[in-house]
């Protein structure tokens, strides 16, 4: 088992820097999910850990050992690829056994390891098949099996579920989580799907434009996003934003304690509030109102989409999530308020969290 | 530019300094020894004139080329080659297209027809020459015998036009198979829905062929045009050598044959080398045309 340390990791292609210095320490046995939109550098980061991309600058340590210049095979890691990368001409057994054969393990040992992994992944019946004759989910399992049999100290997952249909994705997500718990292997998992990230991760690394905006536990990231980008990326439906709100024009009942000190430094702020943190209230105590456009009833809860006006003449789209089933007339106006602790305040320019 | 695309390589690659060199070494050595060296040799010889005894040679600059370009037999050979190539290309492509259209239109048995139509491709040009020579032998050939009844007195040994016709037929014969195969593939790649749409629009079969099939087939046609011309230029040596030896007179002496005849039979080394150099330039040009075409197809 192992820890992974990223110290000021940078990556450039020629003059073009794509990763701008990422720091993270991953504890033994942890499952860390690197999440972000496409092009944010999350796969590049993973591939540097794998040894498939060179680290331009910074220190990469696995279990305290500097591995910047080591070949993938010497890093004691295994990787599951997005496309699975199964060898098409080899049977499931041979796919899983290939790495072990190269390690020159005894035949019996190889057999027992592969069979053990196959049992764990319910692949025992399929060992003689070629990848072509497998379903997407089965191929995915073989790719996992190939990683497991090597008994590495680190698992790397590069969007392993993105080629599966939605239903299978949810199921495999659970399986991966259980498997990782059972084996207790330190894991790095890359995905662009924030739901997958939230459900899997012990901790998240949220990447944005080559920078790790936040490295924290999933719920911390959700409740206290470090930047406006993180706030907008995590959560579905996404956080509501009220842009460039003059501090002076905030309603008196929206009392944000931290703002007093900020007031001197700036005139405006970006405000964020999650749809489920808003609640209906008496018109008298409303912090803001929502003009209803559409109502989506999902059974367990109701989503209301519309516009709100915190500042006069400056409407912003806003969503509201209510538990249970509710009905509202189109164009009706709903008085809303939220607990002060649920309001997120961001710098208009940098997007950094202010409260 | 396609040349750049062709030189492209993987994003993922291996490190190693001696291994890649070891891997390309066999190819490079053979290319160097049997392609580059002779080519350089040809260029050098083309600027030299050996003395009558072949003991020494002197540098004469462009004289060999000047001589060639003023030599009426060489210029005739150019004309002969042009006539030969165009004829072979036409004779090989038109029937091939015709049969391909027919084979594409049958529902049952097109695979069987294909089998029977493609095998002549495997016959060597030299053997094709022998086979056609046997058929058209002036005294015993079956074809020349029956031609008599059509009022044709067949003797390609004496009649230059007949000799040309015979080498064209023999050269085109095996190439029909090749063109047929590509035309058929081209036809089968045309979406049936296009044809059906035109049918609904009331277009007659011939009209449909002219306005839809033929234009859609034009990439294949152009490709085959280049391939057939290259074939006629360089791969038909065997046909000429077995049927006419370039004769009668020099009526079927195409450029490639003349290089051989002047160099090996005539022992005119300077001239043969100069001819080689001119041919190299020609192949170079044809290759570029061919690649340009592929480039176009790639960028569709």
């Amino acid at each position, binding site marked *: 088992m192992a820890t992974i340390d990223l110290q000021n990791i940078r990556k450039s292609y020629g003059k073009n820097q794509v990763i701008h210095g990422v720091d993270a320490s991953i504890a033994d046995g942890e499952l860390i999910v690197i999440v972000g939109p496409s092009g944010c550098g999350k796969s590049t980061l993973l591939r540097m850990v*794998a040894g*498939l991309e060179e680290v331009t600058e910074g220190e990469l340590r696995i279990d305290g050992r500097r591995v910047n210049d080591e*070949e993938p095979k010497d890093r004691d890691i*295994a990787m599951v*690829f997005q*496309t699975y*990368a199964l*060898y098409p001409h080899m049977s499931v057994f041979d796919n899983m056994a290939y790495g072990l054969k190269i390690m020159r393990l005894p035949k019996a040992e190889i057999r027992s390891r592969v069979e053990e992994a196959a049992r764990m992944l319910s692949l025992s019946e399929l060992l003689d098949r070629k990848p072509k004759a497998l379903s997407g989910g089965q191929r995915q399992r073989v790719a996992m099996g190939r990683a497991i049999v090597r008994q590495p100290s680190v698992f790397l997952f590069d969007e392993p579920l993105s080629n599966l249909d939605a239903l299978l994705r949810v199921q495999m997500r659970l399986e991966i989580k259980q498997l990782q718990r059972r084996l207790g292997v330190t894991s790095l998992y890359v995905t662009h799907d924030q739901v997958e990230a939230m459900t899997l991760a012990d901790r998240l690394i949220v990447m944005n434009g080559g920078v790790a905006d936040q490295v924290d536990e999933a719920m911390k990231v959700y409740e206290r996003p470090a930047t406006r980008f993180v706030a907008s990326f995590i959560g579905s439906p996404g956080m509501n934003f009220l842009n460039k709100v003059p501090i002076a024009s905030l309603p008196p009942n929206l009392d944000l304690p931290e703002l007093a000190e900020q007031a001197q430094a700036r005139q405006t702020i970006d405000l964020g509030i999650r749809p489920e943190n808003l609640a209906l209230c008496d018109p008298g105590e409303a912090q803001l109102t929502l003009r209803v456009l559409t109502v989506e009833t999902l059974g367990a809860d109701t989503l209301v989409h519309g516009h709100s006006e915190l500042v006069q003449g400056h409407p912003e789209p806003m969503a509201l999530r209510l538990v249970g089933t509710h009905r509202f007339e189109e164009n009706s106006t709903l008085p809303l308020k939220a607990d002060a602790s649920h309001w997120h305040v961001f710098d208009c320019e940098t997007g950094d969290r202010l409260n | 530019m396609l040349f750049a695309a062709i*030189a492209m*390589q*993987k994003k993922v690659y*291996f490190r*190693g300094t001696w291994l890649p060199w070891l*891997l*390309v070494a*066999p*190819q*490079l050595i053979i*290319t*160097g020894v*049997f392609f580059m*060296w002779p080519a350089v040799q*040809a260029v050098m010889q083309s600027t030299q004139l050996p003395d009558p005894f072949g003991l020494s040679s002197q540098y004469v600059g462009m004289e060999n080329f000047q001589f060639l370009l003023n030599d009426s037999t060489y210029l005739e050979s150019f004309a002969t080659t042009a006539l030969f190539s165009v004829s072979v290309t036409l004779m090989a492509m038109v029937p091939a297209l015709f049969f391909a259209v*027919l084979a594409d239109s*049958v529902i049952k048995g097109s695979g069987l*027809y294909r089998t*029977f*139509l*493609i*095998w*002549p*491709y*495997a*016959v060597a040009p*030299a*053997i094709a020459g*022998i086979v056609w020579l*046997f058929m058209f*032998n002036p*005294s*015993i050939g*079956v074809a020349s015998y029956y031609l008599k009844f059509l009022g044709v007195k067949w003797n390609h040994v004496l009649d230059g036009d007949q000799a040309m016709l015979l080498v064209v037929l023999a050269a085109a*014969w095996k190439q029909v198979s090749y063109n047929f*195969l590509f035309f058929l593939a081209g*036809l089968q790649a*045309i979406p049936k829905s296009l*044809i059906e749409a035109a049918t609904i629009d009331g277009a007659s079969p011939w009209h*449909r062929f002219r306005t839809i*099939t033929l234009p859609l087939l034009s990439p294949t046609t152009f490709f085959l045009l280049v391939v057939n011309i290259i074939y006629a230029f*360089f791969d038909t*040596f*065997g046909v000429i*050598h077995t049927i006419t030896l370039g004769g009668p007179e020099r009526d079927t002496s195409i450029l*490639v044959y003349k290089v051989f005849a002047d160099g090996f039979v005539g022992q005119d080394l300077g001239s*043969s*080398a100069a001819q*080689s150099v001119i041919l190299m330039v020609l*192949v170079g040009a044809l*290759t570029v045309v061919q690649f340009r075409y*592929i480039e176009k197809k790639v960028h569709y």
Partner: protein
Amino acid sequence: MAIVGRHPWRTATVHILLILGIVLLCFPLYLTFVGSTLTRQEVLQVPMSLMPGDQFLENYKRALFRGTNAPVLGMLWNSLVMAMGIAIGKIVISLLSAYAIVYFRFPFRMLCFWTIFMTLMLPVEVRILPTYEIAAKLGLLNSYTGLILPLIASATATFLFRQFFMTVPDELVEAARMDGAGPIRFFKDILLPLSRTNIAALFVILFIYGWNQFLWPLLITTDPSMNTIVMGIKQTVPQADDFADWPLTMATSVMAIIPPVLVVLLMQRLFIKGLVDSEK
């Protein structure tokens, strides 16, 4: 392409035309076969019979074991060695160089690439004399090495493999690297097995190419025992009709045609794939 409508007579016409085409295309070969089964006198009789005669065994035996300058059996063997040598040689060196060019970065990679590319512009026919001189200088006349070696450089095959390698997903190399495979293991365990069909298709084409070589063996083999069948047949062609042994020539022709034709017919799918691939 429905050039014919639903009319049955039109369909029939198409079939008749196709069959006619096939007959026309096959007739020269049929005649060759007929010629190979007649006696010398029968061939010289005008017009020659269009039905096979009874001299099949006699003529083929004569060709195989005696021939004109050399027994055809030996020439067949030479052709086989040459065709196999060229096909295998081209495939091996092209596979290796394509692998280096696609999967490695090394100094002068582009120069290597262009050098190989240049061979496209230099067919044997164009540089006959100097190539012959070099082969002679290297002592390659009348040897299998001389027949094979100068012909196995191949830009086409190299490009074909390059093309194919480019379609192999990068993840496979990465997976192999994660599995601890180095460049040689990756080539042997993964790339080579994946190239199987391409190799087979190319083999079919190159075998025919090698078998059908004419000019090069004509230059390089002066000793009749080293003749290949395709070039050796030229020596059997009668110069004057009186001394003609046409049946022998025709029997030799048939034997020269059969191997490559068999390859095409038996491996038709691979043959077509090879043909289409190598012209891309």
